């Protein structure tokens, strides 16, 4: 079976800085894959290349068997490959409900579905998913008034209502109150199991990723350093060195 996402030998440089060098990774359908590495090792750059945020210098990226490295951001999102942002992006002057409703997928309806009342589609689904991430009681507040951690949860719920096949999450636990991290891990797992969304998660927190991922890739200085099961990665001396060296 072909992997859902197949990144082959992708390189990307910014001026003199080589952010990714010949990076390859595969994510199978239904998997939770992890991408780890010290700060500045090129993880976010990898995400940006996958979702079409910038053109890659070389290499190929396949999603559902289709080469997507030349497609635009919006087109890739409509194929069902979505990302959340490390810096968190929500629509600040709209309420949480409005953020959710406009994140419904419009893949089939085209423009005419935009001319329907804003309450015509997905209201219950939006409430259910806000409940799922624990923001139900905040649903009519402006998204910009939420705390950073709550905005991250909202961004996650917005991604879920879009029904992607695959979701790339850039440091979902960064900035989240440590007491809530276990709950978030649980929700990520449920989104994967119950909604069938394949996940690729960038994570800085080793404990989190060991708990979450089935398969882990580790970047260092823009190159793939190691890959394997959480167990393999935990015991890989190169990974330990990279992390100790960087801190």
């Amino acid at each position, binding site marked *: 079976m072909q992997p859902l996402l197949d990144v082959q030998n992708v390189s990307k440089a910014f001026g003199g800085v080589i952010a990714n060098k010949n990076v390859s990774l595969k994510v199978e359908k239904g998997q939770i894959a992890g991408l780890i590495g010290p700060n500045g090792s090129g993880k976010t750059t990898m995400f940006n290349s996958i979702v079409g945020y910038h053109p890659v210098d070389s290499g190929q990226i396949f999603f559902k068997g289709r080469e997507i490295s030349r497609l635009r*951001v*919006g087109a890739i*999102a409509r194929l069902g490959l979505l990302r959340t942002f490390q810096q968190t992006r929500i629509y600040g002057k709209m309420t949480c409900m409005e953020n959710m409703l406009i994140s419904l997928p419009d893949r089939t309806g085209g423009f005419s579905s935009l001319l329907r009342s*804003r309450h015509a589609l997905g209201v219950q689904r939006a409430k259910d998913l806000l409940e799922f991430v624990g923001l139900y009681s905040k649903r*009519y507040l402006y998204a910009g008034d939420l705390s950073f951690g709550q905005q991250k949860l909202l961004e996650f719920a917005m991604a879920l209502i879009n029904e992607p096949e695959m979701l790339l999450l850039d440091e979902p636990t960064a900035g989240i109150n440590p007491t809530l991290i276990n709950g978030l891990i649980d929700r990520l797992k449920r989104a994967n199991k119950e909604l069938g969304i394949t996940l690729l998660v960038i994570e800085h927190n080793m404990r989190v990723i060991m708990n979450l991922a089935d398969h882990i890739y580790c970047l260092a200085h823009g190159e793939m350093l190691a890959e394997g099961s959480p167990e393999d990665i935990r015991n890989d001396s190169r990974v330990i060195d990279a992390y100790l060296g960087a801190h």
Partner: protein
Amino acid sequence: MTRKSYHLLAMLALAAIGLAAPWLLPSYLSQFSKLWLFIVLALTWDLMGGQMGYNSFGNVVFFGIGMYATAATQVALYYPLAAYTAAKGGGTEFIFNTSQFFTGLAAGLPVGGLAAAIAALALGLIILGMRGHYFAIATLGLAIAAGELAAGWDLIGAGSGMVTPTPPDSIDTTVLFYYLSLALAALTFLFLAWLYSTRFGLAINAIRDDEDKAEAMGHHTTRNKVVAWVISAFFLGIAGGIFGNLSKFIDPIDVAFNGAEIGVWMILMAILGGKGTLWGPVIGAGVFYIMKELFWTYLLGWQRVALGLLIVIIVVFFPQGIVGWLKERWPGRFGPTAEEMEAADAKGEA
């Protein structure tokens, strides 16, 4: 009283004042016509600048295009346009009887709207791929360029402008254009009220708040931006068509493509009233227009200085505009509060 009934009451009151004005204030009728058109200018600007966060300094171009296209259609239905403009619209050869005048208007105004909409489509496909700040800069030169082009085009009278068709004496054009202006303002308002209640309204708000995010979520952002500009231009074009007839004479630079005055005023009216709100542009246009008329009447010679000061005061003290400020003080009057929405949910679920 509920908020919905406030909204309805405000609309009914405006409609009543609007319909009765020809009897109440007959001598100010043409000023009131312009006020209704100014409301259209502010509303259509706000669709871009307020609701979508795309500040256009070039919207007056669609106003001017509509003005010329309407007048040209009115004439060309019955006379060769070149001969008409060469004669400066004068002479006894170019007479419009009642039916010709009305037919010309009925055809000309939609043509004006469509011509402006097509121009917005073409321009939008070129410059709406850019992000907000670059778009704003790109629109800066539009009015000047359009004015220069119109001033060099003989068919529409070039630099000496174009006289709109003179109606037969039997038609009271003051009242006619008054009601046309009122009808256009009402139509624009109701259309936008509907548009902002749809998912499209949310989609352009999303562009305003974070366009990168909207794109990453799979929105057709460029298409949505172009559609918004086309809608804005359509109503602006019709407003231009009426305004040209109201002024009776179209000067390419002082009337049609007057970026320094009308082009700037439409922005100020929207900001004064409250960007990104439905009623803001209406209230802003009203307040601004009355101030402007007062300045031009009582501060002659200093009117531009006074207007400049007003602009500074607006930007410094009312960055949110009148409605934005009122909304902050009495949130419940302008939209349901979070508590009310939750209460409504609870009722629905019970």
